């Protein structure tokens, strides 16, 4: 019996997911009214800015500790929207960065927002600050700013770690309305416990589509939903198939070899395993094998020509 080895399937699924996104972006370009469900955290943005305007206190935005990545770019997109609203009402803003690259991009985005609104005179170069790239120095600096300036609203969006609760609780102590969202799953519970509104999971990535309703962004969101449907389908099929296969007797068992290789051998050759269980183990099920290709000893046994030895050619060595 030939062992099923399909190392290409992970690449295929990734390309399929990317294809869903690109197809829906092109599809959405002609559409005007694609539905996006209500996200309370994003509806609260305008209320929070309005509150800050009424109180005459600043809005503080923090894109987290992460470097310049998809997460921080997404956070800066939302901050661009917040700044646009704040600029219209002359509400002061503070954007605190922990990464120099994020700081540079943030500065450009905020300045461009003021420029696009025709309010460049209201732009304060010190409103975007690099505080520190050290976690707790950054936490201390931003917390100090929240306390001293008595922020009316804080937006904590990005990659957060242990400092998340320090920000959230400090802002809560000055009565700031808080909108938070993190892709770091360990911090989301802290935000849920301490903040008024939280963007959970992929709501964070849906934010710019929700706020701007541009066809490219909305189409991308629909593509993500198609991807989710595919993942749900694979999970369901995998669960059913896996549950069924785990009850079946194993003819071949997966045996690990030296150097990361593995082989499928008849169970009759492995008495210990047969005594333990005659049913298939997880790594012998079809679904596991589909996404975890097996490297056989033959695949590792490759003969290649060697580069010419430069020292020997030059007459070196002892």
């Amino acid at each position, binding site marked *: 019996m030939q062992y099923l080895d399909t190392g290409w399937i992970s690449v295929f699924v990734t390309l399929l997911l990317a294809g869903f996104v690109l197809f829906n972006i092109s599809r959405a370009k002609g559409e005007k009214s694609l539905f996006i469900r209500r996200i309370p955290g994003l509806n609260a943005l305008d209320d929070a800015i309005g509150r800050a305007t009424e109180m005459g206190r600043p809005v503080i935005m923090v894109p987290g500790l992460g470097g310049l990545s*998809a997460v921080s770019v997404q956070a800066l997109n939302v901050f661009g929207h917040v700044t646009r609203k704040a600029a219209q009402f002359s509400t002061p803003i503070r954007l605190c960065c922990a990464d120099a690259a994020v700081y540079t991009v943030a500065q450009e985005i905020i300045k461009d927002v003021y420029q696009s609104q025709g309010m460049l005179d209201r732009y304060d170069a010190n409103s*975007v600050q690099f505080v520190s790239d*050290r*976690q707790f120095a950054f936490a201390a600096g931003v917390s100090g700013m929240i306390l001293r300036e008595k922020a009316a609203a804080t937006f904590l969006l990005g990659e957060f770690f242990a400092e998340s609760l320090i920000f959230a609780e400090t802002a809560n102590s000055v009565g700031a309305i808080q909108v938070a969202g993190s892709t770091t799953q360990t911090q989301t519970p802290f935000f849920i416990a301490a903040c008024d509104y939280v963007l959970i999971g992929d709501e964070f990535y849906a934010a710019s589509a929700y706020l701007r309703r541009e066809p490219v962004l909305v189409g991308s969101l629909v593509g993500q939903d198609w991807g989710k449907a595919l993942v749900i389908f694979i999970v369901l099929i995998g669960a059913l198939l896996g549950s069924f296969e785990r009850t079946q007797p194993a003819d071949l068992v997966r045996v690990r070899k030296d150097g990361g290789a593995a082989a499928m051998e008849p169970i009759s050759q492995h008495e210990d395993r047969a005594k333990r269980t005659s049913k298939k183990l997880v790594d012998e099920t079809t679904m596991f094998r589909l996404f975890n290709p097996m490297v056989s000893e033959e695949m590792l046994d490759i003969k290649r*020509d060697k580069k010419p030895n430069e020292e020997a050619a030059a007459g070196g060595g002892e």
Partner: protein
Amino acid sequence: MNFLLPLAQAEPPAFSQPHNSPQLWTAIIITFLVSFAVLIALLFAPTKARRPVIWTGTFLSGAFYVLLFLWPKPINRADDDLPRNAVEGVSFWISDFQPTFAASTNVIAAFLLGLGIYSVLRVHITRLLKRQKDWVFSVVLLTAMVTMVVFGYIDYVQREFHDKEGKLVEMVNWGPANYGFDLLFDGLLQQMDAAMFSMIAFFILSAAFRAFRVRSVEATVLMGSALIMILSLMGAIDVPWSNMVDGITGKDPSHFLNNMKISEVKGWFQSTLQVPSLRALEFGVGLGALAMGLRIWLGLEKGGVS
């Protein structure tokens, strides 16, 4: 494919030069000047002219990593191996070039760190000169920054270049700069970091107090599950409870009541509710990151500027 073999085995362009060689220094100086010129040009270029340059750079960088992901990887490769065919030739080149390519990010980050320091100096020197509110804290920050840089640099130079025998490992051989750096880094900075970190315990308490107030069905479920998690970590509760269950079941492992042990309930919560929920969130976040990455790579993401 054999006719492509000489091409596959051709030496790719050298991305590194011998240590301290004139070629290396020439390459460093030329790269520095070119990078500096490009940065200055980008700084003064209008936004519309900047965008295609940045998009081209982003696309080429992204294309390299897409190729790295999609191209078949060499199996069991030794350093002195020659590729067997054109496909392996490309895969060898990609894997050789990747560390150099990734390191170029560090060079760009180094340029940007200068801008970060400039931001800190501008904010705090302005506050100091204009005697704005809390200007004293700015003095403390600037003094601390300069002192740390000076002591850190002297300590680094001494350890890296003037201590070939490793004498500075022993404290008795330290000079004033080493003591100063130790005091600043281990004696102050690390301790203040730890102090900030420890404050989280109190913040957790106050946040939990608010979150666990039973005001809705969700909050009640949250409090109930949290209570089980807490009790399962308290031996004084968990052990007598488990003993009581064992007493009823007579330590029969197949008895249904074994599921009522706190540690079992906790395990069920974690493996059946918590882990699948987190995985579902991770799938969503992963798909979001993929879509965002595609939009940035292909120049479809206009960002906050639009």
